[in-house]
């Protein structure tokens, strides 16, 4: 239940003046004196604008009006079903002293007012040291209306070099970000990729050696995995290879020491099974270097991923910083602007 406003007297159902027999209206219970009134959509009574503390200039903006009693649920639809109605207003024209409702799909009552409102805005623009109109034109140098509608959606427009010389090139933070980005795009990624390749090559060599050494037992799975080289199958292969006989094959340098055949013959020449040959670990069940290939591959892959994500991140940071700089620049412009306006105003008064 909404209570009545302070200035509104309690509801009085009286419709006629007891003495004169004249019809009375409104909360003031006075006869019609020709003053502007509005009809309530709830109780069909009429109300003075002045009695309801509404400026008469809102006359045209009323969409559907409900008197205080209907809004409070004393009379009208709210009294029966409890849904309290509310007065609805039309949207007002953007021109400040125009109290007409807006036209359809517009913020103005008429085209004339739209033009005069925007003209007023353009006239107020003042850019110290520059002529205002070209600056505005530059900000809005859009080829057509569709582009113009998109202004502001892609961040601030970049000021031209004459307007803000060295805005980007003089900022140390931005330059730092750019150089980092260059570094990532340049050598860093390629280096990791070559390392990955080297690792893959070496793994292949170890696999070939194992194939030659213990080929008979391993043939089955060699066939099954030769087609696909996905991560999962490789992990599987490793698992299998551990189960079957295979040398560990780890070497610190990851450089293929000699062709697989030569290595195998050298390996077989040694009588008791060697633990190391040409820097390659030859233990059959090596717990020490367990999963060396997987670990290194993961490590390199992780590096590659993080390089890619840092490229993305740096691009974003560059954009953010550029936006910041633009914003700072425009802010500085407008700050000087307002102070320079105030001074002549004071002189006038």
């Amino acid at each position, binding site marked *: 239940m909404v209570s009545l406003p302070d200035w509104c007297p309690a509801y009085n159902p009286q419709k006629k003046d007891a003495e004169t027999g004249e019809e009375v209206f409104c909360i003031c219970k006075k006869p019609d004196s020709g003053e502007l009134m509005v009809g309530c959509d709830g109780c069909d009574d009429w109300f003075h604008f002045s009695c309801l503390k509404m400026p008469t200039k809102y006359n045209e903006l009323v969409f559907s009006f409900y008197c205080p009693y209907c809004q409070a649920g004393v009379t009208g639809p709210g009294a029966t079903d409890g849904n309290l109605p509310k007065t609805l207003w039309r949207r007002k024209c953007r021109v400040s002293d125009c109290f007409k409702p807006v036209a359809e799909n517009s913020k103005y009552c008429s085209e004339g007012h739209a033009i005069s409102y925007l003209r007023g805005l353009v006239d107020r623009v003042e850019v110290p040291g520059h002529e205002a109109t070209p600056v505005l034109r530059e900000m809005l140098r859009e080829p057509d209306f569709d582009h113009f509608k998109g202004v502001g959606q892609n961040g601030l427009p970049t000021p031209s070099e004459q307007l803000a010389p060295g805005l980007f090139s003089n900022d140390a933070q931005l330059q730092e970000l750019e150089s980092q980005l260059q570094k990532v795009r340049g050598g860093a990624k390629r280096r990791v990729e070559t390392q990955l390749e080297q690792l893959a090559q070496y793994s292949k060599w170890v696999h070939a050696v194992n194939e030659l050494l213990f080929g008979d037992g391993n043939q089955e799975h060699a066939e099954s995995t030769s087609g696909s080289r996905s991560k999962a199958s490789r992990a599987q292969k490793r698992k299998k290879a551990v189960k079957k006989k295979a040398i560990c094959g780890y070497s610190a340098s990851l450089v293929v020491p000699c062709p697989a055949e030569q290595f195998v013959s050298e390996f077989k020449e040694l009588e008791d099974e060697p633990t190391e040959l040409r820097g390659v670990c030859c233990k059959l069940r090596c*717990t020490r270097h367990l999963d060396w290939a997987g670990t290194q591959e*993961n*490590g390199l892959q*992780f590096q590659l991923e*993080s390089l890619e994500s840092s490229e993305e991140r740096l691009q974003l940071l560059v954009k953010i910083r550029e936006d910041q700089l633009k914003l700072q620049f425009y802010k500085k412009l407008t700050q000087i602007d307002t102070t320079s306006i105030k001074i002549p105003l004071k002189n006038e008064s």
Partner: protein
Amino acid sequence: MTNLLLQDPFTVLKEYPERLTQTFETPLQTCCVEFSHGGDYLAMGCSNGAVILYDMDTAKPIAMLGNRGGGHVRSIQSIAWSKDDRYILTSSRDWYVKLWDLQKPGVPARQVRFESPVWTCQWGGPFDLGCIATVYEEEYAFSINLTPETPVVAKICDVYEYLGEDEKESEENEELEQQDFGYTLVACVHPVWKEILITGTSKGWFKIYRISDQKVQLVHSYRFAYSNAKHMIISQSGDRVAINSSDRTIRQYSLTANFELTEFNFALEHRYQDVINRLQWNSIRFSSNSAEYLVASAHGSSARDLYLWETSTGTLVRVLEGAEEELMDIDWDFNHMCITSNGLETGNVYVWSLVIPPKWSALAPDFEEVEENIEYREKEDEFDQVGQFEQQQELDQAEEVKIDLRTREKFDVRGNEINFNRFVIPLDYDSILMLKHWDK
């Protein structure tokens, strides 16, 4: 941090945490936990190699080590904070030891690769910025000098141990040579005698090394068991050592040495065993200073609690309950008096601490706590004017006493050192900005 002086002293001065108060449910499987020295941050090492730093005040993650590249890719084995909480050492099964500068936690400051997984890594050794690492199937521990851009690694072994086969023949060293100590698994730098390093080996030996700039000297060796050393801890005061070995026993020794640090003596104080279930112990931790308590987590799916013993008598004083799974690594934050441990199955991190009830009367001496509203009856002389002058004088005198607000206190009420500069991890504005702009 709350002012502990204003809290109920009987609760504040309790010597060990009592209740499970917090559970961190992390998306990653945590496998090792470590508080910063100030207790402001908790580092969690995860099984995929990530290390996440949580802020203990807000219980939110604030940094991830290596999120800009160069993180670990296999499970983390150990985490160690530097004295000023600015640097972190991590060791992992991906064969790397990495040093992180929290000023720039995105990338490692230094890293060293070994030839096999790294067991542990701890601060210490003969260098200003150096650490001691133990590595899988390595006979000796390693000392790493982290000052140069590419860290320098050296084996920690006595000259006699290092001699070739021929030289070992000489009579003098025969005894030493015959001993097979096995692989070095754990290592601890002594907290008081900084040049003393104690290691534990796979064949159940303690070895005490004395490390100086030039040489490494094996000063003492002592066999504690015939099995693997799993964990070794030394109390802050340095006179108590506990070793957890794979024969299901935690042995607690008192360590004494002569003044020149040439002779050492281990005296067995207690052996902690689970006599009924014969469980192994996962991890152990001492309480602060002279280590009056020892806390351990037990192996096996039936064990879900932390056990806390008094070290002087060897009696079990408390079982910390609340976790619904087997617990692994333990750390104890003495500043905030809380113990944390990570669960094996979910990878959640549990924190036990003290619950201090609010005590308003501590704020003012004449403050009285009442159960319900009572009508106040003015005392006979309560607002009398007599004696006001003397009262005023007393107050003035009290005000004249200078209160020192600037000198920091050296110790908190629990006796922990607090007068050191704690590093504050800088806010990562970049990430906040990026989060805001990611969609645009």
